[in-house]
């Protein structure tokens, strides 16, 4: 099936998310859509899938115009989609999720669960998915949930399958398995649109690459293009991701975590007996696939998790059981994972956001009296120091770009003396310039002798920042390894393989992506 977009435009208010997009997906190809967060990739796919309506332009399926007002129209036309955030009902079984919307029935309207189970098993066996149709979705690992999503699309005879950032939640090895599945589907004649911002994957799997920047198509590329070329197309200038840093000058242990265990509100264990320490002047990065307990570790340290036991000592003082305010006052800086929800009050001005945790302290207050003048002068200083691009200090924080919002959060957290800085996903969704800036400030803070704890799901960031890397899997510590550990080893550890064994396996079986890269590099050399 051939899918074609002609002159598609979508605006959200003054923002043009998609600007006259022309794109052709040929039958049986794996077409990569590459772009930074916010480049308009997901908007485009939601337009194809009927979740949004284009303001201009048309979509053609096999040269016939597609009238696509809802997902059911798209599905009827043979378009299937695996969303970045899975569209699965957590309390339903796999079979129930797969049948939803196209339920087989018998005896005058009763659900035919057996038929649904059979369909799941058929597809599962054909592609070697190993999915139990009666498993409740919320109990399944994310990799398996993703397969359930793919089964959902295949049950409806999807001939174009859109995968929206499918690897964001996977370990490198699970990514390999997904790539294998994509190849099988392609061999079956299914076209695949693969949306991502990760260059390595693109080069391993794509037949064609289209690069999107700021809502526009900025070019097409061949999978043999180098990573640097793709990166510069994606961000519009040449980039280096490496951070200049000196070897750490470590001091005493600042943060000492022993036997930390956290359960969530459903009594699921999310952090299981985690122990580690962070010394003054070093960066410890917690690596792992999203949702393996990293966030909860940082929240437990700060006192945001009510059901936590074990010991968290800051300079020998116990933090568990203390209020968030007490923890902050004892010298902990916290950059939360979701700045829009936990880091800022969107409707407050930049100036107010810069003193959120200090508003009741001198010089911003004396007793119950708030001192706007001090807040204002503080804002002027910070805006200059951190190069926050804002109309004025009175601008509401929510109107700033992601990068500048993050600068506000970091400026606030670094504006008081710290013993420990915790930063969760400090550069998620930021443009490259802001990433460089944030990385530099974090290293600068380290060099001032602060202990730094980073949580990141991006191995590039872990490699760039970490002096030591702690890998978490399913709430447990897989191992703590030096910062310059090989990506393959980290990847295996992220899948729960202990460090020594990961070392061995990585040597024996380089991952598909590494393999593809080696080949491509060789081709490059041959061409020269």
């Amino acid at each position, binding site marked *: 099936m051939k899918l074609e977009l002609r002159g598609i435009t979508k605006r959200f208010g003054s923002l043009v998310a998609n600007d006259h997009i022309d794109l052709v997906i040929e039958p049986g190809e794996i077409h990569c859509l590459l772009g930074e967060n916010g480049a308009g990739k997901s908007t485009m796919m939601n337009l194809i899938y009927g979740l949004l309506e284009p303001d201009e332009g048309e979509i053609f399926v096999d040269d016939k115009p597609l009238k696509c007002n*809802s997902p059911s129209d798209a599905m009827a036309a043979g378009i299937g989609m695996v969303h970045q*955030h899975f569209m*699965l009902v957590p309390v339903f079984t796999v079979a129930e999720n797969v049948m939803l919307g196209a339920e087989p029935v018998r005896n005058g309207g009763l659900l035919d669960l057996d038929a649904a189970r059979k369909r799941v098993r058929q597809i599962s066996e054909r592609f070697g998915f190993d999915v139990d149709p009666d498993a409740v979705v919320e109990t399944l690992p994310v990799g398996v949930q993703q397969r359930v999503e793919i089964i959902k699309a295949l049950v409806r005879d999807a001939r174009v399958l859109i995968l929206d950032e499918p690897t964001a939640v996977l370990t490198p090895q699970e990514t390999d398995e997904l790539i294998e599945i994509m190849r099988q589907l392609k061999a079956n004649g299914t076209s695949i649109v693969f949306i991502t911002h990760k260059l390595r994957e693109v080069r391993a799997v794509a037949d064609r690459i289209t690069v999107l920047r700021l809502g526009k198509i900025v070019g097409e590329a061949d999978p043999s293009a180098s990573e640097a070329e793709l990166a510069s197309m994606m961000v519009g200038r040449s980039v280096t991701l490496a951070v200049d840093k000196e070897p750490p000058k470590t001091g005493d242990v600042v943060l000492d975590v022993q036997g930390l265990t956290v359960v969530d509100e459903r009594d699921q264990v999310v952090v299981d007996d985690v122990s580690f320490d962070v010394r003054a002047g070093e960066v410890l990065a917690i690596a792992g696939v999203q949702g393996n307990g990293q966030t909860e570790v940082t929240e437990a340290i700060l006192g945001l998790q009510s059901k936590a036991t074990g010991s968290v000592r800051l300079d020998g003082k116990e933090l568990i059981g203390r209020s968030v305010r007490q923890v902050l006052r004892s010298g902990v800086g916290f950059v939360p994972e979701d700045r829009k929800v936990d880091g800022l009050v969107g409707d407050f001005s930049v100036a107010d956001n810069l003193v959120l945790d200090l508003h009741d302290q001198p010089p911003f207050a004396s007793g119950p009296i708030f001192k706007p003048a001090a807040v204002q002068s503080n804002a002027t200083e910070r805006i200059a120091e951190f190069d926050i691009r804002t109309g004025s200090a009175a601008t509401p924080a929510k109107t700033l770009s992601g990068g500048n919002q993050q600068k506000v959060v970091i400026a606030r957290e670094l504006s008081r003396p710290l013993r420990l800085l915790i930063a969760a996903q400090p550069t998620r969704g930021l443009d490259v310039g802001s990433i460089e800036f944030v990385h530099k400030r974090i290293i600068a803070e380290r060099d001032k002798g602060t202990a730094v704890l980073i949580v990141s799901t991006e191995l590039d960031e872990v490699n760039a920042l970490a002096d030591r890397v702690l890998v978490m899997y399913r709430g447990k510590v897989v191992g703590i390894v030096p910062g310059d550990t090989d990506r393959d080893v980290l990847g295996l550890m992220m899948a729960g393989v202990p460090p020594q064994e990961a070392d061995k396996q990585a040597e024996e079986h380089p991952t598909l992506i590494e393999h593809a890269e080696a080949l491509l590099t060789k081709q490059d050399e041959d061409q020269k």
Partner: protein
Amino acid sequence: MTETTTATTPATTEPESENVKALTRNWAPPIAYTVLGLFALVVFGILADSATATFGLSTRSDAIQLDPLAVPSKLTSIVLAVGCLLAAAYAFWLTGKARKQPLWLPILFGLLFVMSFLVWAVAGAAISLTGLLQGALALAVPFIFGALCGMVGERSGVINIAIDGQLLFGAFLSGVVASLAGNLWLGLIAAPIAGVMVAWLLAVFTIKYFVNQIIVGVVLNVLVYGVTNFLYGSLLAPEQDTWNSPGKFGKLEIPLLSDIPVIGPVLFNQTIIVYVMYVVVALVHVALFHTRWGLRVRAVGEHPEAADTAGIDVNSVRFRNVLIGGAIAGFGGAFFTLAQQGIFNKEMTAGAGFIALAAMIMGRWTPIGAVFAALLIGFADNLQSVLGIIGFPIPSELMAMTPYLLTILAVAGLVGKIRPPAANGVPYIKS
């Protein structure tokens, strides 16, 4: 698959550590059971005087006559209270092992406790058990209809606080139509229409205009109270013969089934409205869990985006469900006028819609659970009036509080975790 896949198989899950057990243990239920059990043992047993408690098991018209059950009150209460304490000990043991509490445990405990109390309260007197249960069911009927109404809405993600208004308007319109037409059956048809009218307002404001669901619900209740009170004062009371004399349905005895001792006359000698209720309960149960409609409704209430991407129109499912709920509650409202009173009275639902909401939550959003919760509340409610008649020393106002106290305890999680539909109360707005 590639060879790498074999390497990624994670280590098998180990048994939970002590840390985890300590965090996941919930000591509240066993402690509550123990306190209540000890209370029963001391107050109903040890401190009580010994007398005989007599329970009638048959009414005079029954085909099979059973002798009244007479028991020594002190001894029986003590035995039952010890039973409570054994249940508490079992709960402690389960919690210590960090195991789940089975659902039958709170039910068993509740039964033992209530029986222990009942034997103590009836000591030296006699009550009819059949009568007690009959009264309990009669009180529970509107709660059951109301709970089903709330459930159909909330399973699709719309909170319905206006159940009371829907019951009341059903009661009002059924009474008026039956009076004017001189036909009870027409009144019965008018009742669900009345419920749908109120539900339609709720649906339009909450689903189409995204107004806060709680606020619209509260406002609709007040609106229905106001409208019915006004019409009652200006029409129904002054011209009662024309407007407010519907009469009521007689009881239909089902042959054979109504001859079953104790429960036969309770369940199978009822008005048509109660028989319809049995059917509606069964229908909602089957529809919700075994049909296409039910699967879609539950998907919409749990994860509307997932339903939307599967091609289900979320907001029309919700709209339809709120109307179906309205029809159920409106029909239930007819029970007040056409089965119980034979006449419409001001605010005659007396907050039944809110109790229904509690029954729905206690029953964990399932029809069967809600029925049991409603029966329990109805039983407690009826018990206080029966005990008032035999001269029970505790003031009836205090006794009347028990159903509400029970509800708070249940909702607070003392009988296990309660998990509402995930998208309950969250409007679905497409960008």
